[in-house]
């Protein structure tokens, strides 16, 4: 049934002559086929995403707590949830902290990832195989597993990180508690996130580097361009679309990150003083059972992420136009 309707593009373009009557009937079938094929996914996405997203908007204007959850209906409160969140100092502090955190994580991921990709181009074939295998191994580690390993390595009593730093002469880290300050907690989370994200970025950028035309690089070198100049004027323009996609994705992932900070810092040590946006939403919306307020936070978060990516996408697009 499915296959009988499968029509190659060539036939759609009308390249194949045939009896008129059959063509017109075929055309109707052709017109309906892609929609029939899309229907199941469209229905599924509508039910499991469209409906909850509409509900999210509705919830954000309602009082919806545990009582309402059992009754399955909330009461309208206008913009009370939004004004409560926007008047909450914790929200603004969390927003600032999350923006700085995201900038640091995305910046480190992109710079180190690109450097790794450039390294992969320069090494011998065997070293490339070894390094790529290592990166793929890291890439495959489940986040929850990585968190546990980090927790063990940075444990204040006998974590290997303290031992290595002390024996390298970096300083006295004997029984140093990495979980003592907000800065050091978030720095640890950053190492975990960057470590986990590097393989994807490095391997993707490395694949894109293969598309940099050799002749162009050689021509630039003959014209006397140094390695930095070649990188800026030849390599970066070719990489730009890939870097754009990777940066946007990293911003979205890191801004809403939850699992790494929540599990590594540990629920008992999570306070409004070290919230990131995802944790703020989880704690104040889900954990406290204030779903209406949580929905308002979620909507604000979606708007911020959208704004962040739009600004970036437009700037990159403009840069692309200037370059040509």
């Amino acid at each position, binding site marked *: 049934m*499915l296959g009988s*309707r*499968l*029509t*190659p*593009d*060539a036939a*759609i373009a009308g390249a194949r002559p045939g009896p008129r009557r059959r063509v017109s009937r075929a055309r109707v079938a*052709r017109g309906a*086929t*892609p929609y029939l*094929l*899309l229907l*199941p*996914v*469209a229905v*599924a*996405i509508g039910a*499991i*995403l469209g*409906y*909850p997203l509409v509900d999210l908007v509705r*919830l954000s204007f309602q009082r919806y707590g545990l009582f309402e*959850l059992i009754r399955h209906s909330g009461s309208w409160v206008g913009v009370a949830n939004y004004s409560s969140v926007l008047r909450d100092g914790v929200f603004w502090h969390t927003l600032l902290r999350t923006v700085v955190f995201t900038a640091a994580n995305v910046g480190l991921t992109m710079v180190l990832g690109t450097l790794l990709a450039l390294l992969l181009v*320069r090494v011998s074939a065997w*070293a490339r195989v*070894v*390094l790529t295998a290592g*990166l793929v*191994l*890291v*890439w*495959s*580690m*489940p*986040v929850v*597993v*990585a968190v*546990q390993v980090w927790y063990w*390595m940075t444990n204040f009593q*006998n974590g290997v990180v303290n031992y290595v730093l002390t024996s390298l002469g970096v300083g006295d880290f004997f029984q140093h508690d990495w979980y003592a300050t907000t800065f050091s907690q978030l720095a640890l989370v950053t190492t975990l996130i960057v470590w986990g994200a590097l*393989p994807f970025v490095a*391997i*993707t950028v490395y*694949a894109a580097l293969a598309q940099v035309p050799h002749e162009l690089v050689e021509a630039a070198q003959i014209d006397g361009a140094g390695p930095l100049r070649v990188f800026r004027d030849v390599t970066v323009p070719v990489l730009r679309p890939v870097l754009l*996609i990777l940066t946007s994705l990293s911003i*979205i*992932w890191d801004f*809403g*990150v*939850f*699992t790494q900070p929540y599990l590594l810092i540990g629920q008992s040590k999570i306070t409004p003083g070290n919230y990131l946006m995802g944790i703020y*939403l989880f704690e104040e*919306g*889900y954990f406290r059972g204030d*779903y209406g307020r*949580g929905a308002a936070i*979620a909507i604000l*978060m*979606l708007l911020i992420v959208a704004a962040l990516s739009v600004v970036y996408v437009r700037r990159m697009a403009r840069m692309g136009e200037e370059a040509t």
Partner: protein
Amino acid sequence: MSAAAGAVRARRRRKRLRRAGWNAIALAVFAAMVFPVYWMVATAFKSDDEIVGLTPTWLPEHPTLAHFRAAVEKPFFWTDVKNSLIVVSVTVAVSIVLAFLAAVALAKYRFTGRKLFVVLVIGIQMLPQTALIIPLYVVLARYRQVNALSGVVLTYMTFVLPFSVWTLRGFIIGIPKELEEAAMVDGSTRLGAFVKILLPLVAPGLVATSVFAFIQSWNEYIFARVLLNDQAKQTVTVWLSYFYGTSRHIDWGALMAGSTLTAIPVVIFFLLVQRRIAFGLTAGAVRG
């Protein structure tokens, strides 16, 4: 002439030296990146004395399987592994079938609304997962799907479906049109062309996408954490996250053994399909 040859040789030697330097850096980076994974496996095999000692041993001196035994004997390990397997296999099976149909439509037909659908599929993948926990929780509570594996399957489809549609589309586009046409010229029907040509060519893509969807679902934490309260119903990532509970004394060896066991299926599968999926992702991104 001999001077020129000398210059060439000198340049070649300099080049080789520089390459050796890059190789050394690559090995150092490799060691630093892989170390956490090594440390996890090494700890899992060490004896307790070695683990709690103040001076770490780099290799397990008296390798033991005791920690693995302790990990699997912890309450609910096998139950939660079974739960993970159920959730993951149902999610993947349903998603791949639905996504394949949509991917054929996107790859092989031009129609009004196609671009809109593509934008939708990409846009969904850009939604931060944390923003979805509240509405998904509330809606699923409305239909009594909280604390049920079926509810978790539905939430997992929110990210597996769009990803699978997009990746499969990339694989289907990669099939040369001429092959299908040749099959039809040879007298096959369209169904025949589909079964004989398209399916075998797409099969590796189907396998790769399924495996990657398997990994994503197996690794998922936040939806499972939010939806499943009952220990007997949790998935293996939630099991691992509760491993040490609130106790002050942490059994590091067993924790690392449990972590290793959780990671093993993912690592094996990932190594099998990574190359293919990385290709599919970039192909989709570049051609999008």
